[in-house]
């Protein structure tokens, strides 16, 4: 009887401990997000009030209104969707085929090519910034949609190839051989056997690349002036009242606008992200 009681207490304590840990971690992650939202609906004159108002005295949507009316928010959302959308489609198609090639065909040249692609992940963007800036101008791609899309694609290719190649390597060759015996040609084997099996990994890289592209600050900042995406727009907000203060209410509103699709995306596709990460063997 005593043992049973001990076990029940132990179980209860474990559950409390688990929930406590969960609550602390959730708080640490969610509080900044909540704070960004609270700041976005707080009038500028109350933003740095002490003691802190966790719920603003005079909540307002003025910052959002300002962004919509004056900062061309919808244009920036449109640019972001266009660039990120095309980047994801093109990079996924290219990388899925490349990953298949890298996993199935083994020659010295292919191994070196794969190593080169993956090694580019190690080069900091700032190192290539200046020569790439000159190059983009020289070929007339500076401040153009195609130019930005190419740069976005090049930024996500190494990671995507790495994940998809690892995943494709796990798919048994015998499945392809069976399809071949049944009369499937190379294209049919690729599109009807391999790619459907790669769906979880493809979903994962799409989601991760979506978030990466949305957060990409350096590329649009350096390689465009006119074409503005959300990640850059957040630092280009007007110094509304005086030249020596950051318009934190607008920055918070813009931050929330950038965060919202990411939160929705992750919430909706959480299962696929986890499946893909585990199946691809990527340590997140």
């Amino acid at each position, binding site marked *: 009887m005593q043992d049973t009681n001990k076990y029940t207490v132990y179980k209860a304590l474990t559950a409390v401990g688990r929930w406590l840990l969960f609550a602390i971690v959730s708080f640490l992650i969610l509080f900044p997000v909540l704070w960004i939202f609270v700041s976005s609906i707080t009038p500028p004159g109350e933003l740095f009030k002490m003691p802190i108002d966790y719920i603003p005295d005079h909540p307002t949507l003025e910052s959002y209104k300002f962004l919509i009316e004056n900062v061309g928010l919808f244009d920036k959302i449109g640019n972001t969707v266009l660039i990120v959308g095309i980047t994801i489609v093109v990079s996924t198609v290219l990388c899925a085929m490349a990953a298949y090639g890298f996993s199935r065909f083994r020659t010295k040249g292919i191994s070196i090519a794969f190593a080169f692609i993956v090694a580019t992940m190690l080069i900091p963007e700032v190192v290539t910034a200046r020569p790439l800036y000159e190059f983009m101008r020289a070929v007339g791609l500076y401040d153009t*949609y195609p130019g930005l899309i190419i740069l976005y694609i090049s930024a996500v290719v190494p990671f995507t190839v790495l994940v998809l190649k690892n995943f494709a390597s796990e798919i048994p060759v015998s499945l392809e051989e069976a399809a071949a015996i049944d009369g499937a040609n190379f294209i049919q084997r690729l599109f009807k056997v391999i790619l459907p099996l790669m769906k979880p990994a493809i979903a994962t890289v799409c989601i991760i690349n979506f978030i990466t592209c949305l957060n990409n600050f350096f590329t649009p900042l350096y390689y465009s002036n006119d074409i503005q995406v959300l990640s850059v727009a957040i630092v280009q907000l007007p110094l509304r009242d005086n030249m020596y*203060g*950051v318009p934190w209410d607008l920055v918070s509103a813009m931050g929330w606008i950038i965060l919202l699709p990411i939160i929705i995306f992750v919430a909706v596709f959480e299962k696929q992200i986890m499946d893909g990460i585990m199946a691809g063997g990527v340590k997140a």
Partner: protein
Amino acid sequence: MKKYVLGVFIGFLLLMSGCGDQQDGVHTEDTDSQKEKLTIMHVDAESPRFRKFIENAEKELDLEIETIACPADADVRQAKISTILEAGDSSVDIFSVNDEMISEFKYKDYLKPLSDTVMTEELLFSYPESYMQNIPMKDGEVYSVPYLMDIMVFWVNREVTGDREIRTQEDFVALLKENLGNDVYGYGGAWDQSYAYNELSEFVNLFGGDYYDWENKNTREALSFLHDLATKGEVPVSQVVDRYEQMEQKFLDGKYGSIFMYSGAINTFECAGAYRMEKIQVAPLPGFRKNATNIATWQYVLNKASEHEKAAIKFLKYAASREGNIAYAECMKCLPARLDVIREEKLDIPGFQVLQDYVNHVELKERPFSSDPMKDISKTGILFQQYVMNQISQDEFCEKMEEMQKNQR
């Protein structure tokens, strides 16, 4: 399936070519309209007030002006503009820069001198003389057109100070020593490492010191005064991490009785409904040893690689003109850069009268900048923090400042 893949690629290529056509379209329009084109990268490009100013300028000058926003963050802005200028990129003709940026850029071969075309000798007299010589000028050439001026003014919160007049150093010291309530101070500042520099140079001005002479008795006295503020608890030590946003909020909330802050903050206090007689107002500069205060301006510079020089000069001449100064000031509700305009006009901007008094009665001094201002501002701020926190002595502080300034020269 082959058709599907082919379709995706053709669709992509069509989309790419469609996007590329956008620029061609603009080009055709340009040719049709016969208007000279000009591109300005401006820190206020997204502001509706600035857009109104540009629309007026377009009509006035018969130009087609495109504005591009630039980052508000100082470091990111500096990096972005430097990259464009250094690369000889002609996509932007005119940039808006602040004192820190012009102090660096004028030593590089990025900008077109404007002495012969815009900033003629006659016009130079309209701006603060010492400012023009030390900030936009190098080797007798002027490299920028100031369009907005901010004066470091003395602000008081009447809810804290009451009706007392703070006219002299003694009045100021008396305010510091008075018990105004729990966690309420007679004076507050922003001593974050990037902001302490403003406060330091302001007090060096007030004590009649010389920012480049750290053996100067008055400079040393200013340092001791600031040090005592912190060590005697006359200002909160926590202000070493405060920037202007935090300082302004504390001032608005009645935690500080007075602050030194740029005149542009008038808009912030007005938006918060606090700029009124019984709460926050600009007071005359307290008389210390010298009646001098810092100023800061924003300026236009012309890209050396600009392909629209004629149109750019036309715009810069307008920006430097009396009409241009008035139009900008009234659209943006800020002080213009020309002293004669401030002295002779009645501008419809908040607090104009009191700012006019500053211009008429106070010596306006530029902040001292090196050719690598961002780095030195930060270094100075760190040294200052160490000094007021008693981590280094005054002699050590002065020695390090001198050493830093010697390396700059």
